[in-house]
Structures are given as C-alpha cells and as structure tokens.
C-alpha cells in the first residue's frame, strides 16, 4: 500500500458547495453539489522488482551501477472523467494498473589522472517504458490525449493536420464543408467527414530516454565543470504558440502568422487569415501541428574555478581562496519552437507534456570569490 499524495481530502464523500446568489436583490445562500461520492475508492498499491549490478573496474577508475526495475501500480487513483449526464465532470477512481519498466545506468570514471591533470566523467542514463496494463475496459481521453490498455501513458491523440486546402482542391475541400485556405485534416477512416475516428497518435509526452553527463577537468589550481542534460524522443503540445497564433482582430500574434495561406503561399500549415465573419472553421488545439518534437540537449552549467596555491596563501594568513565563474543554463540545442522544452505539466499526474506559457529558464552568470581565514 503506497497511497497517492495528490488526492484531496474527502474524496470518497459526496460534497456540497455553498455559494452566494440572489433573489430580488437580496444576497441568498445557495447550496449545490460539489463532488460525487465514490465509496468504492480504495488504496493505490504498487509492486516493484529491482535488480542492480555494481561494478568497480580498473583500480577504482570506473564505477558502474546498473539498475533494472519493473514497477506495477495497481488500482491507480485518478480523476476519471464522467459523462456530464451524471451532473459531474468526473470523480476520483481506481482506474486500473500501470506498469513502468526501465533501466538506470550510472557511470563514474576517472579518464585521465596525472600529477597535474585530472578528468572525471559522471554519466547518468535512464530509460523508462510505461504501459497501461488494465483500464477496466475503458478508454480515457484526458485533454489532448488518450489512455488505453496496451498503450503508453501520456500519449497525444488528435487530428493530423495535412496542411491547408489549396486552390486545386476546391471540390474535395467542399465535401468537407471547407474552402481553399481552411485547414486540411487527415480523413483517417476515409468516410468523407471529419469525425472522432480520424484521430491518430501524435506523440508522447514522456521521453524515450534522459541522459545527463558531468565532466570535470582539473589542471593545477584550475578546474572546469561542464554539465550536460538531454531528453530524447518526447513531444510537447505547443499550446503557447497555438494561442499566440490567433487571427482574431485587434490582438497581437506571433509573426508565424505571416506564413498564413494565400493564393501565392499555398504550401503552409497555417490557414488563411479571414475577417471574423469569414473565419476558418474551429481550430483543433491538439492537432498534429501543435504537437512538436521537444528533444533537447542543454549545457546546464559551465563552471571555471581557480584555487590559489596554499603555499602562496599562507603569507596572507588565509587557508583557502578561490575565484570562479559560473554560467548556468549556458546553451540549449533543440528544434522545439517554444521557450523551453523542459516542461512542467499542465495539470495533474497524467496530463504531462503541455507547454502553456512556460516561463523560460534564465541564463545566470555568476562570479564567485571564496575566502577562508
């Protein structure tokens, strides 16, 4: 039994909400239903199997730790969405079982060790694969996603944007009620209408692997630290850009909108700009255009320190003196168009991978002077 710290109080009880309303201009208290009871709610439990290998090689010059794990969370607690005919948007429920399998590898090496020069490397690699084992026969659709038995969690699911209907496709566009310049979505089931069955998997909010590497070089009193961080194979819903690409009158927009469809710019993902009453049909937020590859490599930290020689310090009655320059978040290499591909989640547990007005990480440059008497 492990429980789940993200569950609010009183989740098994039917709750009421008190609000202030009015009759004939007098403030009046009104009570409405707040949450549905789920008396069958039970503890979430997990079973974990771990196996690890620890190796020391080359006279302690290399330490390798490899951990394999297989964790199954049963009766996972989750806010299960319900049809609104119940009167509620959803309820906390034990929705099913989820398996996480993976490997964690840690390698510490001393690559070069001489009297004056030393090069250390620390490498961490993690790969996690998750799968929904059982969802009590259900398929759940969290915002922009799908949770389904036999599939990984955090999957993006939605319409595939093929581009924009061109002038050569007037007739075909018309069968979907569209005009040249409107977004063209893939008709996956080929039935001539845009419907829910046209949706496809668009990516996954969890990375295929994460790797971090720290290199430390020491030469005499100088030491240099380079800290690299990377995630590979994850997608993000670029919601910020979607919002900022709004063609509504009198609102600001990202400049990408300048690439909107025109008769001379037909090969684009961005529909024609129309006046409000002649507007493209509703946008699909989490369509394939909004889901981007967010793999990245970040130079998280570069630190250069010079430590003055003790023999020299003695004449000043100092025990330690060092001077350093540190650059945090020095470089970021990514194809992702948002501010920062290292996301935080939109909502709770299973809504990972939605980038909405993510605050960018600042690049911090600091100079350190460390003196000990």
């Amino acid at each position: 039994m492990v429980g789940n710290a993200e569950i609010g109080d009183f989740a098994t009880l039917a709750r009421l909400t008190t609000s202030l309303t009015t009759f004939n201009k007098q403030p009046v208290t009104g009570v409405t239903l707040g949450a549905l009871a789920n008396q069958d709610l039970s503890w979430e439990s997990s079973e974990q199997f771990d196996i690890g290998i620890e190796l020391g090689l080359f006279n302690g010059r290399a330490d390798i730790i490899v951990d394999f794990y297989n964790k199954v969370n049963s009766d996972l607690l989750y806010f299960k969405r319900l049809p609104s005919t119940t009167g509620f948007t959803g309820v906390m429920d034990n929705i099913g079982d989820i398996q996480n399998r993976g490997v964690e590898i840690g390698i510490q090496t001393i690559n070069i060790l001489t009297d004056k020069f030393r090069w250390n490397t620390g490498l961490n690699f993690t790969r996690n694969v998750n799968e929904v084992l059982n969802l009590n026969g259900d398929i759940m659709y969290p915002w922009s996603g799908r949770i389904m038995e036999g599939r990984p969690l955090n999957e993006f699911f939605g319409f595939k944007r093929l581009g924009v209907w061109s002038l050569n496709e007037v007739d075909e566009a018309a069968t979907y009620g569209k005009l040249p310049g409107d977004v063209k979505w893939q008709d996956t089931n080929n039935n001539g209408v845009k419907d829910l069955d046209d949706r496809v998997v668009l990516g996954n909010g969890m990375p295929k692997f994460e790797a971090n590497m720290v290199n430390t070089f020491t030469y005499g009193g100088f030491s240099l630290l380079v800290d690299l961080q990377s995630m590979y194979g994850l997608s993000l819903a670029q919601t910020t850009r979607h919002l900022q690409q709004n063609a509504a009158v009198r609102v600001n927009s990202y400049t990408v909108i300048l690439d909107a469809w025109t008769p001379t710019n037909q090969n684009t993902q961005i529909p024609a700009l129309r006046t409000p009453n002649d507007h493209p049909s509703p946008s699909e937020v989490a369509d394939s255009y909004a889901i981007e590859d967010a793999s990245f490599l970040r130079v998280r930290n570069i630190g250069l320190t010079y430590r003055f020689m003790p023999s020299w310090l003695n004449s000043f009655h100092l025990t330690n003196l060092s001077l350093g320059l540190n650059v945090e978040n020095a470089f970021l290499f990514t194809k992702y168009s948002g501010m920062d591909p290292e996301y935080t989640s939109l909502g709770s547990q299973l809504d990972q991978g939605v980038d909405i007005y993510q605050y960018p990480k600042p690049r911090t440059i600091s100079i350190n002077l460390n003196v000990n008497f």
Partner: protein
Amino acid sequence: MKRLILLSALIALCFISCESFLEEEPVGILTTSQFFNTPNQIQTAVDGAYIGLSRPFTSVFLGLPISEFLTFSALPGFSTNPFGTGPDESSFVRLDPIDPGNGYLNHAFNTVYVPMENINTVIANISETKVINDVLKNRYLGQMFFLRAYHYYYGVKLFGEIPLKTTPTESISDVELPKAKVEDIFNQIVDDLEMAEASGLPWRDETGHVSMGAVKMLLAKVYLEMAGYPLLKGAEYYQNAYDKSREIIASGEFSLFDQYAELRNPANENRGEHILMIQRQSNVANSELHNAVLPPAITSAGNIFNSSLLPTLEFYNSYMEGDSRTEDGAYFFEYEPGRITTYKYWDELAASTPPSGANIPLFRYADVLLLCAEAKANVDGGITSDPTAVEAYFKVRNRAFPNETIPTSLAVDEILKERIWELSFEYLLTWFDLQRTRKTLDVNNGEMVNLIGHKATTHLRAFAESDLLLPMPNEQVNLNPKLSEPAP
C-alpha cells in the same frame, strides 16, 4: 500591449479548455448525506438549484461577452459579431456546419445536466422529508419540477434526442446513458409541468422564484412546440396551448408595460410584464449582458469584444415604418448614423456604476399573448377571428403601433412575424420559433418564408435540415459512445 497578449491568450484558451480551467475544487466538507435535515438547509438547496439558470448567460471566460446566449443567438441570421472573438463563435454567425469539437456544444450540454443533477437531488431528498410542512414541500417541489422541465426543454430544442435522467447519480457504473426519443422528453416535460401546476404555487412571486404564471407559460410554450416540428401533433396541441395561455390571460395577474423602457426599469423587476427573470445583483451575481451589447468601439482598443450580438441593418429595417420598437431607447439604439445596437439589455445604472445587477428577462407576458393568438390561428386552420386571440395579438401590436385599429381576423404568418419583431434577441425565442415552424422572416421583403433553403444575410449558405439541431459534443461522445447512436 502585454495585457492584450495575455487577454487574447486567455480568450483563445477558453475555446480549448474552459471546462477544466474553470473547475473548482470545493473546499467545504458539507456532504449530501448530512444535508436536507433542517428547513433552512432545504431552502438553501432549493435556491441553489436556480443557479443553473444563469449558465447560458454567464461568460465562459473572465467576464468577456462570450456566452451561449450571445453565440447561439446568431443562429437565425439576424445579428452579427463584428469583431469575432474566435472561430467557435463565428461558426454560428456564418452558419458553418458546426464542428462537434466546437466548445459551445459541450458547454450547452453541461448546461442541461449540471443543473439537472442539483434539481434531481433536491427532488429525491425532499420528497420524503418531514421537517417542512406539506404546503411548503409541494411549493419547493413545484419549483424543482419546473426547473427540470425548463432545462430539458432547452436541451431537447438545441440537441434533439438526449438522455433522460430524473434521479440523482448514485454510482459511477452504468453512466453511459442512451438517448431518449424527442417525444419521450417532451412527455417528461409535460409530466413535470403538470406536477408543478398542482403544487400550489402562487400566480406571481416577486422574490423571483418560479410562480404559477411561469409554470403555465412554459406548459403553453411546450404544447405549441409539440404541435409543430418535429412532433407535428397538430390541432389538439394547438388547442392545449391556446387553453393554457388563456388561463394565464384570464388570471388577470399580468399586463404589458405601457412603455418599452419600463421593461428595463429596475423597479419593475419580477413584476408586471415579467413572468420569470434570472435574479442578478451587482455584488454577488452580476450580469454581463449590459457590457455585451455596448456598441463596438470603433476607435478605441478598449472594448474590443463588445457588441457580440449586433443586429444587422437589414433586420432592423425589416421592422415596418412607424414601429415604436425601433425608436431609440426602445428595443434598439442608433449609436452612429446607420449603425444599430440592441437596447433590450441596456442597464442605465451600470453605465455609471458597473457591473450590472439587472435581472435577465426569461419569460414575459408579450410572449404569452402572441402564442395564444398563434395557437388559435392554427386551430382555426391558419386564420382566426376569435376575439381572445385577436385581442391578445393586438395588445402587443398596439404598443408598437398606437394608431392602428384592431383587425377582425389574423393569419398565422402575421403573428409569427410579430413574434420575431417583438421577441428578437431574447434567449433563443426566435431560434426555437424557426425550428418549430420551419419558417423565417425574409428581411428583404418582410415576408415569412420557408426556413429550409432560405439564406439569411449573415450566413454563407441556405438553411438545411441538418442545421436545425446541434451535433453531440465530441467530449461527451468520447465519454459516452451511446450518444452517437439514435434513441433506441
């Protein structure tokens, strides 16, 4: 500028996921099992069940004039939204085939069922109670039966077949309800209203609670609906509608205001011509309608999202020469030469001290009078000289044209036209008329024409039968696949 970016972002956001962003976790720990034990608790639950009435009029985001009321009101094609807050609204203005992903569909669907759950819970919990006397209990139940009928009425009119549920949700298994047939939904509505009729409610209730007048008026409206499309129950139900509306007229409790401005007078709220209003108050439950109908700010960037419901000039001009309703300060206002805004929701007080606390009119007596005339004209085969019917019609007509004399007979089309002019831009009244009669006003010549095949001036194409009902929202079909199947 930053503020504008944020604003646009917030607005755009709301088309995506208002629902989840606006969800609030209750912090209290009142639980249903401990409730309904005292007269006061029962009263607060009854009053709470009214909160759902305001959903279609409540901004779906931060007080901006984007609501079901403003959006769906564009369906008949008599109004426009010049600044277009987004594609979800514009689809209704242009009469695009409405995409099942359109955020308003889910909002409207929830507007039926979220209040319904409160209503069903109150009904289930107070039916057996002993802590209040039977007179009070029956009055409470009467109000709840009315509210249940009201929400199903809007649900069935907007979507057609929808699930029918009259008991509270007790378990989270078996929540995938099938749709019910339109006729079954209407029968449920009639059953509820008949129970409400027998509940001993007073004819009028100046506190703003449901009165016998509101109950009988909805019943009359529902009979008229059932007589027309899609059920086409014909003469028997026209007669029912006529009889029911005559009861309201004969009660002598209701009358038209002499002046149109009196409809907006705060002193007249819940009185006179007003039969049912959504109760608003500027501090605890304000109204956004006043803002929404402000004329567009042509030069200032301030009120960019106003005038979400701007009458077209063609519609305004369809009113006949000399119609008092078109005078400035009646139903319309000419804010610039040749530019018209609707004035029904103008709140004088809010103009100086916002926000608006004006009640939102839902049912008014003019509607009863016109439906009485229409029902009788249909009973009589399309034209009537019945004095009650003609007088009812003429009371409304005469207020608009004080110099006209009472006609000797009346044709259905004349009454339908009068309804469109009299009840314009009141929540879905015109759209529901168009649906049940399959007729609309051709604003170019002032004649009633067949709806199907007619292209309104704001629309991109002519009405088709498929436009009469909104599609089931994607979000709900995802959660309940039975919604994609017709009623069994």
